[in-house]
């Protein structure tokens, strides 16, 4: 029961002065405590988090597009079910992350607006096209694999709502990566045409996946500050290295080749050496010159605009049928609204 009587580091440093607040915040972060929405936090910390969570959420919902591209063409009903569930999860992850971002006071509509107008970004990887069915597998194995490597440390991020959202996301992502790997395994061991399709996809997705970890540490602008704030736990290069080391043996089991002639085991370092990344392409795609930048944002904007009348209708219906506080069900809804489900849809009054 000692926890009851011991104060936390944050409380120990708690002051109402500006300096005191900063000190309390720093102490909490240093002690690996979580910052919660209503706690005081430096403006720059708040801005960094909103930007990062929004970008992360945007990546999830834009990331639905390249894979949804294959739902209608999935080559077996089993694969079709898996792919639909996966794309659905991505919408779900977007929702968890927008929720987390909203705890800092920026509404989802505002964030979506920034995405649609190009003022906020999403992960550049989704500006590459899915040309064959094998691309669905390569995205699962490599893109989701890189994302997991990036995201697992975020489950311990200093900002509570972000960390909690990431715990949920990471749990679900591991299904994504495994289904991708399994898909490629089936292709690699299939007909020569299927094998070729798998190799081609890995050839195209390998380098962009490595770029997902961001620029090299010596060129990464925000990294140091984010590390101090424990929004980021490992450097870009460290995570990239970890990913390469994980992928090499997995590729061997797949029977596929990673498209890097310089890739080899370095006995001395106990890690793999790998070739230089073409950062020119990375920066060009980031700037908007990737193969699908325009298409992705246009589709997203169109879905939002074409859905406006639906969202408006539901809001208008809600305003007309707002239940009287303490009264019965809303008129028009009537008590039978819930009967199809076999139980009352009204919330229980008590636990």
């Amino acid at each position, binding site marked *: 029961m000692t926890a009851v009587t011991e104060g936390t580091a944050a409380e120990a440093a708690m002051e109402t002065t500006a300096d005191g607040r900063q000190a309390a915040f720093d102490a909490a972060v240093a002690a690996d405590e979580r910052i919660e929405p209503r706690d005081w936090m430096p403006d720059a910390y708040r801005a960094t988090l909103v930007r990062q969570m929004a970008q992360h959420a945007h990546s999830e919902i834009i990331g639905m597009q390249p894979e949804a591209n294959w739902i209608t063409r999935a080559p077996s009903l089993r694969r079709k079910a898996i792919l639909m569930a996966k794309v659905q999860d991505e919408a779900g992850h977007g929702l968890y992350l927008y929720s987390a971002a909203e705890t800092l006071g920026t509404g989802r509509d505002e964030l979506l607006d920034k995405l649609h107008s190009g003022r906020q970004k999403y992960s550049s990887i989704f500006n590459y096209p899915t040309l064959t069915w094998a691309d669905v597998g390569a995205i699962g194995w490599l893109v989701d694999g890189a994302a997991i490597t990036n995201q697992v440390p975020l489950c311990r991020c200093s900002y509570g709502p972000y960390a909690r959202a990431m715990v949920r996301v990471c749990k679900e992502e591991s299904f994504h990566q495994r289904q991708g790997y399994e898909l490629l395994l089936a292709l690699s061991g299939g007909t020569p045409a299927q094998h070729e399709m798998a190799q081609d996809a890995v050839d195209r997705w390998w380098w962009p996946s490595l770029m997902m970890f961001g620029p090299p540490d010596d060129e990464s602008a925000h990294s140091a500050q984010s590390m101090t704030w424990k929004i980021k736990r490992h450097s870009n290069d460290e995570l990239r290295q970890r990913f390469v080391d994980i992928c090499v043996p997995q590729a061997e089991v797949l029977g596929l080749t990673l498209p890097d002639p310089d890739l080899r085991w370095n006995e001395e370092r106990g890690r793999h050496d790998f070739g230089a990344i073409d950062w020119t392409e990375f920066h060009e795609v980031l700037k908007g010159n990737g193969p699908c930048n325009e298409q992705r944002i246009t589709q997203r904007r169109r879905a939002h605009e074409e859905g406006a009348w639906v969202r408006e209708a539901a809001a208008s219906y*809600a305003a007309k049928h707002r239940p009287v506080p303490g009264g019965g069900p809303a008129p028009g809804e009537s008590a039978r609204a819930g009967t199809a489900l076999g139980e009352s849809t009204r919330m229980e009054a008590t636990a």
Partner: protein
Amino acid sequence: MSGSTDWPLWEVFVRSRRGLSHTHAGSLHAPDAEMALRNARDLYTRRNEGVSIWVVPSASVTASSPDEKDPFFAPAADKPYRHPTFYEIPEGVRHL
């Protein structure tokens, strides 16, 4: 942007199994309570995570402020006599 297409925010609480309390799962947007329940079902229990859901408009939640943390919670910290471990009981005494 607060046009008529904005749906309000709802907090979602899920009872994962009978016998446990509802726990905060996250939030979502919905035009009204009926739709909020359905959206919550689709979003937060699609892997069989729940047997019951509550949704509450986020605007209806009154929260204690971090600034009030000391007056709210510190006074409870120096009353160790509320906890059973405060009391020393001679060895061998059972069922206590």
